[in-house]
């Protein structure tokens, strides 16, 4: 019974991401929803798809707050099968917010300051 449980647990684990790599800003200021894109290394890095890499167009002129790269079982299997010649992964990222604007005032007729 114990071995069966362990096997079920192992199977469940295998259906999730095999590997995760996280890069964050030291003061991450996430904005909105995460975006996910597939990315592949071709012929040991001599090619890339997409080229030159994932462009976070959703972020407009803003920076990235967090980037996570994952490889699931299928991607790991393809990489192994091709001896690394084709190595797919998925990139997930959060756009950063623009900088907090400078504080202002609302003039109520008596004093302006702040």
């Amino acid at each position, binding site marked *: 019974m114990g071995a069966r449980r362990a096997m079920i647990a192992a199977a*469940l684990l295998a259906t*999730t991401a095999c590997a995760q790599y996280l890069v964050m800003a030291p*003061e991450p200021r996430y904005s909105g*929803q995460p975006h996910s894109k597939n990315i592949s290394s071709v012929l040991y890095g001599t090619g890339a798809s997409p080229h030159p890499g994932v462009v976070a167009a959703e972020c407009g002129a803003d920076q990235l707050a967090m980037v996570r790269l994952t490889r699931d079982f299928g991607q790991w299997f393809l990489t192994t099968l091709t001896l690394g010649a084709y190595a797919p992964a998925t990139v997930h990222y959060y756009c950063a*917010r623009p900088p907090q*604007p400078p504080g202002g*005032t*609302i003039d109520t007729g008596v004093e302006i300051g702040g």
Partner: protein
Amino acid sequence: MPGPFPQSHTLRWRAARNFTNWHQTVVQPIAGIYTPHYPPDNPPTSAAVINSCTQDIQQAVKVAKDRRLRLRAVGSGWSLSQAGVTDGIILDTSRLAGWIKVTEGNLDPGYRGSADFRTGLFMFQCGNLIAEVNKLIEGDRFKRSLRTTGAANGQTIVGATATGTHGSALGFGAAHDQIVALHLLAGDQKQYWIERASYPVVKKALADALGAELIRSETLFNAAVMSFGSFGVIHNVVIETRPRFLLLAETLAPVPYDADLRRLIETADVANYPALKDKGRPYFLQIVVNPHGGDAMINVMYEKDWDAAHVPDYRLRAGKVGPGYDALSLIGRFFETNRGAIPPFFKLVGSLVDTRTRTGSWGEIFGYKAPQTKVASGSVAVAMADALRTLDLLDQLNRDIGPVPLVWGLRFVDRSPALLAFNRFERAMVVSLDGVSNSQSERFFRMSADRLEAAGIRYTQHWGKTNAFPPERIRRAYGHDRVDAWLAARHQLLPDAADRAVFTNDYMVRRGLAG
């Protein structure tokens, strides 16, 4: 057939099938996401800037209304419950981070705040992160601090306060209890500036400058301040802050879950705990009980004067090794079939607790955390008189159906006047059932509420965390008068049924709050 969703350079539309909350415990099918943007040249906040953002938000509301879609304002999507989501349009407020320092000249002559509060009032636009608020006000320019927040800083100021986020600042309430005025966009036309009648804050001229109708009403303020997006879009809030201070944070771990600790729990008074009684009154007290090992951890923080040499450093730092982003997801699956591993897992986690003393500002101590998915967290609040009975009941439930992958985080929060405030008791012990999200923890959340109910213990549940609140329980927890007053306030501020429909979600319907 309606055409494409209108957008502009400051109100952007994104078609999206699903909305996923920050902790990935809620995935909600949606129509799409509207994101109003602060003006792109990032000008200083002014009435004109606020008004242009108001126009964009109300444009999005109008689109939802015209297309008979629901709409919900979302900050960071930090809530673990479905309080903050809708099956219609998500209004992403994260780009609205304007702010003003409320000046003496803005204040109504009837403002009764202390001389100190008069110098520490800020108006924040809804999308300001708690992290941004802390960093802004704790700096040398303003030298102020928030009085309480949750343990993390990733929520927006309105997202946190509208769902009941609390800390454990002894003698104070929850995050929303710092708000003294709010700017509510109630539909696509109306907007209100709402304060308590007993506590006027700003001159009518400030509300006029924003095009908002000034309402001073105890009931309407106390209803709207805790309404998790049900009354419209809270565009701005005014909060009272205190002089900045430092916290000396100590952790005692492991400590036995013995009679001394139980006495500390039922009184929240350190005079009753030998290891703490000679250290003075803490500003913050939290006790984490490990129900699987008979031990606990105490987090205690003492208020210290600000040190002029202290330069706050809010940055995340990388350690050598620790749990990954998706660790709890994997662990939760493992526990589904290997329940026996739960007690040793929590013993291991307990042994890894960093017990080093630390000094920092509020924003540093309750700062950035390593992100984690599949966090399980559900909180119940009970009166202090019921504290130990509640813990005993949870322990018994853990023995009956567990072990479950949860620990009991105990915090202490004073009463709020808000009608549906989670902190509705004179002083509440909040039990945060924290741990790993899986079917066992979900079942425990459901059954713990059932057991409390069966035992006749009056309790509330955190709106923004996992909760099991059918309508009759909400009415028992808060009383018919409070619930009816909240519903009546919603009707008064949203008299048009079409506007109420826009700001209704399934979470409210299931809880009898959509009338």
